[in-house]
C-alpha cells in the first residue's frame, strides 16, 4: 500500500477497546492509514472501568481516556452517529445519519449491553442498569429527586451479586441509599469465588452495612400509585420495600450489526473470531466484549486490550495472536480486597489447593497448585489481595517459595518471590511484561512506578498491578545498587514483618522449627530476639519457657537491664508514676540493704542499679512480696505510661489523667513489640506529661480524650500526630489496642512507631481507616489478640520466683552458685555507689565486692 493510497479502516464503537486499538495502531508512526472511529454515546471514549468514580466526585472529563490518539491527523472521530448497517459486498457502513463510510478493513468494537431480567416491572421508573455515564447520570438524578419527594433516605436493591453488583452497591451507599444485594446462586461473586471465599466476602460486605440475600431469585417489581418502583418480590414468596433497583446480572454482546450482516456469531452471543481477531469475513475484525473466542465472550477489559493489540498488529503487517482469556479479576470496593486468578476453582485434574482462612479476621486465601505442588495454577484472595499482583504473573510457572509465605496475612504483596521471567505479563490491562518494565528502568531511566506507568501504561487502567510494578522497579533499582535489602540477617531473607506473617500462618511455635523452615543456620543476636518477640505476641508464654530462653538477650533473660560492669538495674512497675508511701519505704529498704544506687528515671519511676545476677531473685522476692511487679524496663515492650496529676488535684485538669494512665499501663504491661512502647496522658492541653513525645499520647479535652500517635524522644525526636478526637474511655482504649497491634504485626525490627507511621502507605488517613473503619477487615482479630494478651498477662518475676528450674539461671557460677563476680569494684559518690572506672581500678583503690556490700565503702 502506498502513502497516496492509505488503508481505510473503520472502527465501530468508541469504547475502551476501540480506543486502545486506535491508539496502538497510530503508535506505529508513518503507517499509511485513515481511521474513522464511530461512536454512539456522544462522548470521547472514557474509562468504563472507573465509571463508579462518576458517582463519587469525578466528572465525565476526568474519565476521558487519553485523547491524544484522536488528535492524530490520520483519524476522524464521529461521536454520536451509530453505525446502522454493514454492507459487506460494497465494503461500506451506513451511519444513522445516512452517511456512508467505505472501508478496506472494518473493526467491530461495539462492546455489550447491560442485561436486564425480563421481569414484570423491569422498566419502571426507579430501575436502572450500570454501564454508561448516561446510566449513572440518570440514576443519580432519580435518587436525588426521589429522596426529596419522599423526604427520607431511599432503599435500594442491586439484583446480581457479581463484581459489578458489589461495586454498584457500594456506589448506592455513597448516594445515601441503603443497599441490599440479591444473588440467585449460593454466594457472592460465584463466577470467581468458591464457597469458603464467598462466605467470608459476604461477612465483609455485611459489615459495611450492605444487606446480602443469596439463593434468592427476583420475580417481580411493582409500582406505587404514582407509577414508580415501590416493591420487589422474590420467588420464595417474600417481598420488600424498594425505591431504586439496579440490575447487574451480566452483559450481552452487541452483535446485532454482525448478525444482520450474516457474520458468524455464537449462539450464546458474540461475533466469532480466530486468534488473529478475524471474523468469518476476512475484511472484518472484532475485538473486546463483542468478540467471541473459543466459545466465550468475556466482560473484562484486559482481554479486550489484548485483542486490540493483536488487531493493530495484524493491520500493520504483524502476526500477533490472541492467547485466550485471562479471567483474573479484582473487586473494586474500597477497603475490601477480593481477587481471583487463573484456575481459581481448581478445575484442572489433580489440582491441589492450599488454603489459609481466618474467618474472624475476614481473610481467605487459596492457591491452586499442580498435582506435584510445583506449578501455580490460580488462586483466590479475600480480605487481603496484596499478593495478587505478584501471584498472577506466576500462573503457569513455579511458585518459587513456600506457599505459606504467600498466604501470610496483610502483606503478602511483599513476599519474596521467584524472579519473574521477562515474558511474564505483569499488567494484563495493558499487556506489559516484566521485561518491558525492566527495560523502562534500565534503558529509559524510570525510577518509580509512576515513571513506568507513564512510559509503558502498566498500572494505568485498573491499578491492580501497581504493587507488583513498584516491587519490580525496586528490585531492578536494587540491581544497580540503589536500594538495600530488607532481609533481617544472614539467617532470614525475610523482613520482620514477613517473618511475623510466616510464623503466624505456619503456626510454628519454636525457634528450631521456624529457622529450619524459613531460614538457615542457628540464628544470631538479631533474629533470635526478633523471633522471641514475635512468638511472644503470637504464642504468649513466659520469656524463659523452653527454647524461648535461648532467644533472649541478657536483659530479657534475667529480666533486668545490664549495666556497664555486668551488674543489673532493677525497675519495679509504678503504673502511671504512682507509688504509695509504703511502696517507697520498701524500695528504700531494699536499696539500702543491697547497697543499690537509686535514681528516679526519666520514665517517672525508680531504678536501683548495681544488683548482681545471683541477687536478682532475692531482691525481686522482696519486691513481689510488697506487691510490686516487673516494670519491664528491659523489654522491647511497654515501658511506662507517663502521667500528669490531672483533674484529681490540678486546678486545670479536665479528666482523670492518672487514672487513665494507670489503666493503660496495666492493660499494656508485658506487651512485646518490635521496639519499646511508651505512652503519656495529660489532664489538659497544657500537656505536663509530654504525651506528644510518646508512641501514643493522650490529652484530655472538654469533649473527651484526644489521641496522638507516632511520637518519641530519643535520637530523632518527633511529636505524635492527632489520630482521633473526643474519644470516651472505651473508644480510646480500643483505638490504642488496634494501633499497637497493627504496629506490632507490621513494623520492622527496632522500628518505633514514629518511623512506622511515617512509612505507612496512605499515612494517618490509612491508619484511621484500618482502626476506625476496619478497612482491612482485621479489627476483630486485633481486638481478640489484645483481649488474649490482657487475659494471659502474668508478672514474669512472680512466675520465675515460683519455678526452681528458672531460678537456676541466676547462679553466678555453675561451680560456685553464690560467689559474687570477683571483678566488681565500686567507689562512693554523693552518698551512693558507682562502678569504679578503669583508672580507679588500676590505681588499686577499689574494694572488691563481697557477698554483702556495706553502703559506704
Amino acid at each position, binding site marked *: 500500500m502506498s502513502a497516496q493510497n492509505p488503508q481505510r479502516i473503520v472502527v465501530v464503537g468508541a469504547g475502551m477497546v476501540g480506543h486502545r486499538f486506535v491508539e496502538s495502531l497510530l503508535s506505529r508512526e508513518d503507517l499509511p492509514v485513515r481511521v474513522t472511529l464511530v461512536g454512539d454515546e456522544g462522548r470521547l471514549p472514557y474509562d468504563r472501568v472507573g465509571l463508579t468514580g462518576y458517582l463519587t466526585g469525578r466528572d465525565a472529563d476526568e474519565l476521558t481516556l487519553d485523547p491524544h490518539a484522536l488528535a492524530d491527523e490520520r483519524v476522524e472521530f464521529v461521536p454520536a452517529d451509530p453505525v446502522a448497517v454493514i454492507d459487506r459486498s460494497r465494503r461500506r457502513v451506513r451511519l444513522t445519519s445516512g452517511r456512508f463510510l467505505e472501508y478496506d478493513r472494518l473493526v467491530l468494537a461495539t462492546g455489550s449491553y447491560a442485561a436486564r431480567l425480563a421481569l414484570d416491572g423491569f422498566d419502571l421508573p426507579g430501575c436502572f442498569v450500570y454501564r454508561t455515564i448516561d446510566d449513572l447520570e440518570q440514576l443519580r438524578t432519580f435518587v436525588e429527586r426521589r429522596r426529596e419527594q419522599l423526604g427520607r433516605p431511599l432503599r435500594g436493591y442491586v439484583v446480581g451479586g457479581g463484581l459489578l453488583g458489589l461495586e454498584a452497591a457500594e456506589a448506592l451507599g455513597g448516594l445515601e441509599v441503603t443497599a441490599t444485594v440479591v444473588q440467585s446462586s449460593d454466594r457472592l461473586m460465584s463466577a470467581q469465588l468458591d464457597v469458603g471465599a464467598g462466605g467470608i466476602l459476604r461477612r465483609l460486605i455485611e459489615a459495611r452495612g450492605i444487606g446480602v440475600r443469596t439463593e434468592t431469585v427476583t420475580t417481580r417489581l411493582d409500582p406505587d400509585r404514582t407509577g414508580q418502583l415501590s416493591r420487589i418480590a422474590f420467588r420464595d414468596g417474600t417481598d420488600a420495600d424498594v425505591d431504586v433497583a439496579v440490575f447487574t446480572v451480566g452483559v450481552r454482546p452487541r452483535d446485532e450489526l454482525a448478525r444482520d450482516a450474516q457474520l458468524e456469531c455464537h449462539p450464546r452471543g458474540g461475533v466469532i473470531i480466530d486468534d488473529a481477531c478475524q471474523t468469518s469475513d476476512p475484511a472484518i475484525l472484532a475485538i473486546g466484549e463483542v468478540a467471541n473466542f473459543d466459545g466465550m465472550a468475556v466482560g473484562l477489559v484486559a482481554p479486550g486490550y489484548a485483542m486490540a493489540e493483536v488487531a493493530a498488529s495484524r493491520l500493520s503487517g504483524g502476526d500477533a495472536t490472541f492467547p485466550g482469556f485471562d479471567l483474573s479479576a479484582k473487586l473494586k470496593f474500597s477497603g475490601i480486597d477480593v481477587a481471583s486468578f487463573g484456575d481459581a476453582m481448581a478445575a484442572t485434574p489433580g489440582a491441589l489447593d492450599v488454603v489459609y482462612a481466618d474467618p474472624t479476621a475476614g481473610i481467605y486465601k487459596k492457591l491452586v497448585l499442580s498435582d506435584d505442588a510445583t506449578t501455580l495454577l490460580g488462586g483466590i484472595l479475600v480480605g487481603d489481595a496484596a499478593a495478587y499482583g505478584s501471584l498472577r504473573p506466576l500462573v503457569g510457572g513455579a511458585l518459587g517459595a513456600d506457599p505459606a509465605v504467600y498466604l501470610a496475612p496483610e502483606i503478602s504483596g511483599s513476599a519474596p518471590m521467584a524472579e519473574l521471567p521477562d515474558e511474564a505479563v505483569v499488567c494484563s490491562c495493558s499487556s506489559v511484561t516484566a521485561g518491558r518494565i525492566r527495560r523502562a528502568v534500565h534503558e529509559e531511566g524510570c525510577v518509580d512506578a509512576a515513571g513506568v506507568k507513564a512510559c509503558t501504561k502498566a498500572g494505568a487502567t485498573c491499578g491492580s498491578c501497581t504493587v507488583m510494578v513498584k516491587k519490580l522497579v525496586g528490585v531492578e533499582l536494587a540491581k544497580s545498587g540503589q536500594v538495600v535489602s530488607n532481609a533481617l540477617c*544472614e*539467617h532470614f531473607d525475610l523482613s520482620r514483618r514477613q517473618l511475623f506473617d510466616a510464623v503466624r500462618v505456619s503456626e510454628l511455635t519454636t525457634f528450631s522449627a521456624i529457622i529450619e523452615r524459613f531460614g538457615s*543456620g*542457628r*540464628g*544470631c*543476636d538479631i533474629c*533470635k*530476639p526478633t523471633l522471641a518477640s514475635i512468638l511472644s505476641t503470637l504464642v504468649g508464654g513466659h520469656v524463659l519457657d523452653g527454647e524461648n*530462653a*535461648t*532467644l*533472649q*538477650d*541478657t*536483659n530479657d*533473660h*534475667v529480666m533486668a537491664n*545490664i549495666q*556497664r*560492669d*555486668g551488674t543489673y538495674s532493677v525497675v519495679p512497675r509504678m503504673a502511671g508514676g504512682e507509688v504509695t508511701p509504703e511502696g517507697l519505704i520498701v524500695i528504700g529498704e531494699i536499696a539500702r540493704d543491697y547497697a543499690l544506687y537509686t535514681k528516679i528515671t526519666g520514665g517517672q519511676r525508680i531504678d536501683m542499679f548495681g544488683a548482681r*545476677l545471683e541477687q536478682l531473685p532475692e531482691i525481686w522476692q522482696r519486691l513481689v512480696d510488697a506487691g510490686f511487679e516487673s516494670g519491664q524496663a528491659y523489654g522491647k515492650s511497654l515501658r511506662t505510661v507517663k502521667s500528669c496529676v490531672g483533674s484529681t488535684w490540678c486546678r486545670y485538669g479536665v479528666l482523670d489523667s492518672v487514672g487513665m494512665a494507670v489503666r493503660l499501663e496495666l492493660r499494656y504491661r508485658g506487651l512485646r513489640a518490635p521496639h519499646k512502647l511508651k505512652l503519656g496522658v495529660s489532664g489538659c492541653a497544657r500537656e505536663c506529661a509530654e504525651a506528644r513525645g510518646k508512641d501514643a499520647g493522650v490529652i484530655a479535652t472538654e469533649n473527651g480524650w484526644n489521641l496522638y500517635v507516632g511520637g518519641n524522644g530519643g535520637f530523632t525526636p518527633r511529636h505524635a500526630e492527632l489520630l482521633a478526637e473526643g474519644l470516651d474511655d472505651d473508644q480510646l482504649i480500643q483505638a490504642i489496642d488496634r494501633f499497637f497491634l497493627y504496629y506490632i504485626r507490621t513494623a520492622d525490627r527496632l522500628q518505633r512507631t514514629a518511623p512506622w507511621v511515617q512509612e505507612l502507605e496512605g499515612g494517618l488517613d490509612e491508619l484511621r481507616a484500618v482502626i476506625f473503619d476496619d478497612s482491612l477487615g482485621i479489627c476483630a482479630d486485633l481486638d481478640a489478640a489484645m483481649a488474649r494478651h490482657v487475659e494471659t498477662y502474668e508478672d514474669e518475676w512472680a512466675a520465675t520466683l515460683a519455678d526452681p528450674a528458672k531460678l537456676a*539461671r541466676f*547462679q*553466678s*557460677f*555453675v*561451680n*560456685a552458685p553464690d*560467689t559474687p*563476680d*570477683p*571483678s566488681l569494684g565500686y567507689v562512693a559518690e554523693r552518698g551512693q555507689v558507682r562502678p569504679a572506672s*578503669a583508672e580507679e581500678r588500676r590505681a588499686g583503690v577499689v574494694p572488691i565486692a563481697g557477698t554483702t556490700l556495706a553502703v559506704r565503702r
Partner: protein
Amino acid sequence: MTAVAADARQRTHTWIRLCAVSDLEVERGRAALIGSTQIALFLLRDDSLHAVSNLDPYSGANVISRGIVGTRADAPTIASPMYKHVFDLRTGICLDPQGKEPAHLRVWPVARRGEDLCIRWEE
C-alpha cells in the same frame, strides 16, 4: 613441635571438672570460676562443648556467658551482651571488631568425661 616441648606442656596442665554436662542448657551459656578466672561454657545443638573467657575484651565486664549463641556462615558464635561483638566459639576470634582494635577470647580445650565437663587448665 619438639618432643621436649610437648613433655614440658604435659607437666604444666591438668584437666579440671567444672560441672556436669547436664548443668548446661543447649545454646545458653553458663559462667564458671577457677581462682579469679571466669570461664564461659557452652553446649551446642551438635553436642559440642566450648569454653572461652568470660571477660569481654571490649567492655571489660565478665559477661560473655550471658550472650546469645548463634552461627555466622559455618562458625558457631557468641555475641557479647554488652556491645554485641561476635566471637567464633572455636577460636575465640572476634569476627567483627566494629572498628575497634581486633581482640579475641581465650579458648580452653574441653572434654566430656562421662557425665562431666572438664577443661584443660594450665597453671
